[in-house]
């Protein structure tokens, strides 16, 4: 018997007796012979706890994590410091192991967390309503397109090339199911090309989707983009990086309809890409079209304040095929980390952290672009991340830096073939000036080595 079950032989006898069955096998007699597996599963035998730990530790040791190198890798997920109190609170079984709060009377803690989380997201985005989180950032972009379909039923989604490649790819996968076509608006000088965008939108445009700061790290001047979208009656969706939002003009201030984003940087681990959470906030008129779970405040029969899952008539368990989405969950535990993190930062700390990242990113950009063979890919304002163009093959440069224990960032070439020499560098509060100076040293030498090789082989101009 496995260590996670507890029936004794005596239990088995008593239980089968009461059921009136001769054996456990008899309980499966409804299974036709043709669909029974008449052999053991082809899997290894079970292991002791200590063996499993050893096996998984050995696998984990084969990964090079942010604990093993000085990393400037970002591109949508970031190596931030996670304060100790998050681990402490998240490991409480009352937060870790409950299910969806279907019985609100015994789920007030979790429901209140959702309410507090929604408030924090509303504050960050400047939009009045937030759901209690979605899977992650890119699928939240896909969900925003579905909201646009429900709101105006138009066929064309126009998405900026500055939106995260994974978000655009997710949208391309989902939009045909919604009956939508995806049209891409190009970038110019690192930001969404306003003239090109204006030419692409029209009465058939359901939504314009932009990202702030965009994937190349540039802070977009969103006001004219919003005005252009509004002039054709399209919704505007902005994918936001939540920490810079402490500093940047909010979607609410700009009249944007929906703000979504990746919540990983708010107190969540990297976890090789998940779980994290996606946030989703909207203007008041869209509250009944918003996907996912929402907590609302109410009173109990004795007049005490309490919280419940609300507006559930939008949802799949009630409306079935007429639901505003098929999502029947949220990333509640990850969102809990998010709201604790934002409480930890607090009103002033969020601004201080955003400013620190901005100042260090600016210092890093100036320091790195002073190196021979390193240029800025664009000169737009930045907030935490910036794009460089190298005079050397990027993959080889990354390899050389990695050999010295520095991961300089993300090679843009796969996602942006127009920038085969692009490198995206991310700064968090975990990367000090000394780390940045070290990056400059290592990157400078790697680029120089790469340029020499290039000159020798003639592989690059």
């Amino acid at each position, binding site marked *: 018997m496995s260590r996670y079950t507890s029936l004794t032989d005596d239990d088995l006898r008593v239980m089968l007796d009461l059921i009136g069955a001769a054996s456990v096998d008899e309980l499966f007699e409804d299974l036709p012979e043709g669909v029974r597996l008449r052999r053991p599963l082809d899997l*290894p035998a079970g292991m002791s706890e200590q063996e499993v730990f050893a096996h998984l530790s050995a696998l984990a040791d084969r990964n090079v994590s942010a604990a093993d190198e000085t990393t400037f890798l970002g591109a949508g997920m970031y190596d931030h410091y996670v304060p100790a109190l998050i681990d402490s609170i998240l490991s409480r079984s009352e937060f870790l192991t409950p*299910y969806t709060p279907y019985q609100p009377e015994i789920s007030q803690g979790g429901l209140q967390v959702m309410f507090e989380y929604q408030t924090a997201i509303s504050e960050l985005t400047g939009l009045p309503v937030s759901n209690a989180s979605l899977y992650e950032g890119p699928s939240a972009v896909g969900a925003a397109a579905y909201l646009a379909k429900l709101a105006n039923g138009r066929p064309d989604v126009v998405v900026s090339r500055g939106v995260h490649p994974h978000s655009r790819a997710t949208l391309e996968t989902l939009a045909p199911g919604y009956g939508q076509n995806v049209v891409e608006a190009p970038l110019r000088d690192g930001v969404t090309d306003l003239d090109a965008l204006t030419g692409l939108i029209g009465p058939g445009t359901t939504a314009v989707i932009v990202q702030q700061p965009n994937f190349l790290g540039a802070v977009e001047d969103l006001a004219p983009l919003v005005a252009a979208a509004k002039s054709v009656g399209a919704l505007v969706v902005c994918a936001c990086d939540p920490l810079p939002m402490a500093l940047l003009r909010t979607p609410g201030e700009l009249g944007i309809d929906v703000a979504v984003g990746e919540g990983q940087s708010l107190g969540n681990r990297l976890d090789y890409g998940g779980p994290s959470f996606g946030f989703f906030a909207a203007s008041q008129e869209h509250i009944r079209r918003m996907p996912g779970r929402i907590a609302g405040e109410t*009173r109990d029969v004795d007049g005490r304040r309490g919280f419940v899952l609300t507006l559930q008539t939008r949802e799949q368990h009630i409306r079935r095929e007429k639901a505003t989405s098929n999502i029947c969950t949220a990333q509640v535990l990850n969102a809990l980390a998010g709201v604790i993190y934002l409480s930890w930062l607090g009103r002033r700390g969020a601004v201080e952290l955003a400013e620190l990242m901005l100042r260090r990113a600016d210092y890093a950009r100036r320091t790195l672009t002073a190196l021979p063979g390193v240029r800025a890919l664009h000169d737009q304002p930045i907030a935490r991340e910036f794009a460089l163009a190298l005079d050397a093959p990027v993959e080889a440069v990354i390899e050389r830096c990695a050999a010295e224990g520095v991961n300089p960032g993300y090679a843009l070439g796969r996602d942006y073939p127009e920038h085969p020499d692009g490198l995206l560098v991310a700064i968090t509060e975990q990367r000090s000036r000394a780390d940045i100076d070290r990056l400059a040293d290592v990157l400078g030498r790697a680029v120089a080595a790469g340029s020499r090789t290039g000159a020798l082989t003639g592989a690059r101009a």
Partner: protein
Amino acid sequence: MSVSVQTPQQRDHATTIYERSRPGRRAFTPPPLDVPEVPLDDLLAPHLRREAPAALPEVAEPEIVRHYNGLSKRNFDLDSGFYPLGSCTMKHNPKLHERVAALPGNARLHPLQSPARAQGALELMWLLERALAEVSGLPHVSLQPSAGSHGELAGVLLTRAYHADRGDERTLVLTPDTAHGTNPATVTMAGYEVVKVGTSPDGGVDLEDLRRKATDRVACLMLTNPNTLGLFDPNIESIARIVHDAGATLYYDGANLNAVMGISRPGDMGFDIVHFNLHKSFTQPHGGGGPGAGPIAVSDRIAPYLMVPRIVRTEPEGGGAPVYDLDHDGPKSIGRLRGFQGNYGVFVRSYAYICSLGAEGLREASEIAVLNANYLLALLKREGIGEHLPLAYGERCMHEFVLSGAPMKRDLGIRTTDLAKRLLDFGYHPPTVYFPLLVEEALLVEPTETETRETLEAFADAVGEILREAADDPEIARNAPYSTPVRRLDEAAAARTPVVRQPPPD
């Protein structure tokens, strides 16, 4: 005698973190500014900056800790009590899993780290894929979907790509009337129209109805087996034949896989696509409703359309350890369904679970889940309970069963929701109520394999006591609960005038 003293915990009842906020308090100490200070306006022009800071709480660490500790005490959880929530599979979460997921090599691994430096993670994912392929009997797996409903969406989009690739225009998807609500919602999001298939008197798919509706316009049938009535459909082979003869695909909603691991495989039943709820069958702390993960497995004919990236394993020429990589190419792939590599932290836990149990343990888990369910059912059939809460369909069950509270409502004057609320006072999480929809006053019970016989007996006794109590005075249950942090909440008022955030400060 009434006592008027209130503890701080009672007084601070439902106080939010925003209401605890006081200007000037803080928990965060920023790292020092170690770069030259440039005026902010030079870095970011004023028109790009927000007008006022976000009104986040101003609290010091001790207050944050007390606040969330206080909230945690207002939550019921699996580690503290029995949770027989049907179709949710609330089995024990092994503690080892949190430890291995937290290893820095996992927790601090960046998703865009080059595959050469993430060999352990890719190998773990590959091993998990192989295990899921073996459990499902379908050879190709994608771990990408983030939840069961996300896996469903993947499955229906794959079906769409499969038919489109063959030039076969189909517009309808069949779902039984017992289906989870996510199935019809998914069908609509994928651009199909839902057609319901009825349930026969024995609780399975109505074969006559299926034959009538399985036309050449049908793209897919989505089926849960065992279904939400807790019954394995004995006609599954005929169902598969009818669906395949119509040229449609057969989709397996894996929500109830916990009943058949190692005993019967969806692939062997004729299914083309299956999703797993890793958080159910292979454990993951449910976290109050997430995160989970919903990988899918598919047959050969569906494989070309699977999401990218896919994990590939190559054996180096001349020997040596296998090398793992991510393949982003897929000429017929539906593309990406989310960012990065999926909910890897969930994969670590589920893989650890599979390692712990092994082939034999997985089968045993299902056997005991079914045994426990049948034992609890037998206890609830006893005199004093069974006549008020009869089994809706069949005689026995798989890992869950549906009782009908209709006689209880008629004879004792309490509804299923009243029974559920009264169970809270007895320290139990109630079963799922009012689902599946076709059973009046439904109560869907799933004890799982990790509960002891004593727990099942005590729960059945509590149900019996509540029914006896109701026979005496139904008002007790109608006004329950009494012992919880709040009593029955006005959900209608919450939906009428939604208050979904703390009001902004003045």
